[in-house]
């Protein structure tokens, strides 16, 4: 396998409702990424792009539709399609294209436009569930995650206030991200007192549905070294699929992520992730998920995460800043694009280019993660400088 680096990154603003079509959003992210490393479309050997359920953009076979906006015209182009995990999965997918020796460069572009869905994107989730045993009960993701959140809290004696701390942390970080749609901090009280959606999930426990796109350019080692003094190496990738009979999983621990993280760490030669990783971008569509995923990523002992969070371990100036980007809670959650945004964040943070939200102390190793499909897929990327 060849060494692969991220050499460019870019994204659109994440907004409630964009005028741009999915193609145009993809173009803006892809073009910004190419401009960031001074390349033209001719320098791109292949495209790995992603968008989650077709229903959000409202275009069946959305991959083909958005290919030209992703730079895929007349190039080998392949779509990744694993729901919320798509954004990081696409990085692993693009990495494979280059590491294998087949291509020298790969443009990875992920996009989501959730505002097309009427009256609300949640309506489209019904059809991902088992049509016989679950759909008659009219499930939506809020109450599916409520079941998981409740089980997680019960297992370790956590409270809603404990979970809200993660929302407060990430939303505060997000205020400094130029692509974020938010202007105000929230407090634990704001989160806990926001409207109940499905107990124990309140409105501010959840990341906002958004439109947006994000992209990175991957290059093989010799090309990467020629293009930049600061390539950000993909040290490891991992992905796993747990059972789709999700009620048979231990809802308090993300086993799907445990495996994916270990795969990525093994590839990266990391033995003690909780000591070696400098910054973490766990997938945080809900506040409890950020904490749940830190445990699955082996970055925090099970049941000790809230204690560490309260002690400032995951703060911007702590030992392991959590979601310096602001994450999905702080920037927004255009599904597939949100995971790629996390990889972009590693790129900017590790190069020391994150501006106002730069993590102090020259971070050298970071991990980004996403999660999705029938809530049982996770993908992980470890990046280092």
């Amino acid at each position, binding site marked *: 396998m060849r060494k692969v680096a991220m050499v460019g990154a870019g994204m659109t603003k994440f907004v409630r*409702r*964009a*005028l*741009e*079509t999915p*193609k*145009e959003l993809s*173009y803006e992210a*892809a*073009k910004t990424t*190419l401009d960031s490393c001074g390349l*033209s*479309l*001719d320098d791109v050997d292949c495209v790995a792009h992603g968008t989650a359920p077709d*229903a959000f953009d*409202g275009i069946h076979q959305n991959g083909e539709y958005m290919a*030209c*906006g992703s*730079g895929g*015209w*007349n190039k080998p182009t392949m779509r990744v399609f694993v729901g919320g995990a798509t954004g990081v999965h696409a990085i692993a997918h693009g990495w494979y294209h280059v590491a294998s020796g087949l291509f020298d460069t790969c443009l990875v572009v992920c996009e989501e436009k959730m*505002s*097309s*869905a*009427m*009256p609300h994107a949640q*309506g*489209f989730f019904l059809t991902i569930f088992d049509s016989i045993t679950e759909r008659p009960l009219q499930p939506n993701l809020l109450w599916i995650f409520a079941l998981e959140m409740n089980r997680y809290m019960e297992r370790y004696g956590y409270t809603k206030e404990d979970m809200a701390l993660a929302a407060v942390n990430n939303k505060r970080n997000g205020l400094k991200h130029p692509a974020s749609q938010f202007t105000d901090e929230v407090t634990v009280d704001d989160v806990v007192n926001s409207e109940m959606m499905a107990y124990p999930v309140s409105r501010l426990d959840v990341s906002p549905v958004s439109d947006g796109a994000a992209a990175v350019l991957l290059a093989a080692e010799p090309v990467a070294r020629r293009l930049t003094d600061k390539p950000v190496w993909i040290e490891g990738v991992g992905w796993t699929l747990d059972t789709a009979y999700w009620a048979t999983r231990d809802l308090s621990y993300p086993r799907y992520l445990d495996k994916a993280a270990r795969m990525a760490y093994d590839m990266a030669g990391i033995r003690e992730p909780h000591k070696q990783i400098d910054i973490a971008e766990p997938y945080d569509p809900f506040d409890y998920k950020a904490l749940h995923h830190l445990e699955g990523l082996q970055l925090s002992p099970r049941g000790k995460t809230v204690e560490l969070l309260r002690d400032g371990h995951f703060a911007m100036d702590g030992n392991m800043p959590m979601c310096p980007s602001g994450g999905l809670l702080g920037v927004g959650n255009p599904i597939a694009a949100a995971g790629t945004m996390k990889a972009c964040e590693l790129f900017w943070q590790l190069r020391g280019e994150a501006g106002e939200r730069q993590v102090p102390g020259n971070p050298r190793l970071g991990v980004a993660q996403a999660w999705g499909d029938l809530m049982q897929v996770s993908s992980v990327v470890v990046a280092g400088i």
Partner: protein
Amino acid sequence: MAILERITRNIDNRYWDPGTKAFPVKNRYTAGVAGQWFFEELKENGKIYGSRCEDCAVTYVPARIYCERCFKRLEKEKDWLDVGTEGEIHSFTAVHRTKTGEEKEEPSLVAAVKIADGLLIHRLAGVKPEQVEIGMKVKAEFKPKDERQGGIEDIKHFKPL
């Protein structure tokens, strides 16, 4: 495995289920940055706009904000142009069935109309199915301005010149 129903003779196969007339999900789309401009010109001025990438020598119709071949940004002020309202039939079909499968009284004509390097898909009028030919020159006929809503149906149809 139990099969509850099967069709064994090819001749019995059917393509429509007239009972299925609704699909219980909805999407609301935006026209996009390019679409917003394109349809404004269509509605307000009765003009069809394309956008040209000089580097690739391609004129896209409908106009777009980027060239898919080289990723150049196509600016409205610099790279967009009025491509006129005439084109050529690139291909056509006569549609004999409604979308729910019933036979139409008269077949309706649909054409792919080539304008510059792009294609507009639209209805054909003023010509019988047996008279249509590929390569025929056609012209867009617009709805009266006060009926135009900023959509592709602001063009009523294309008609042979």
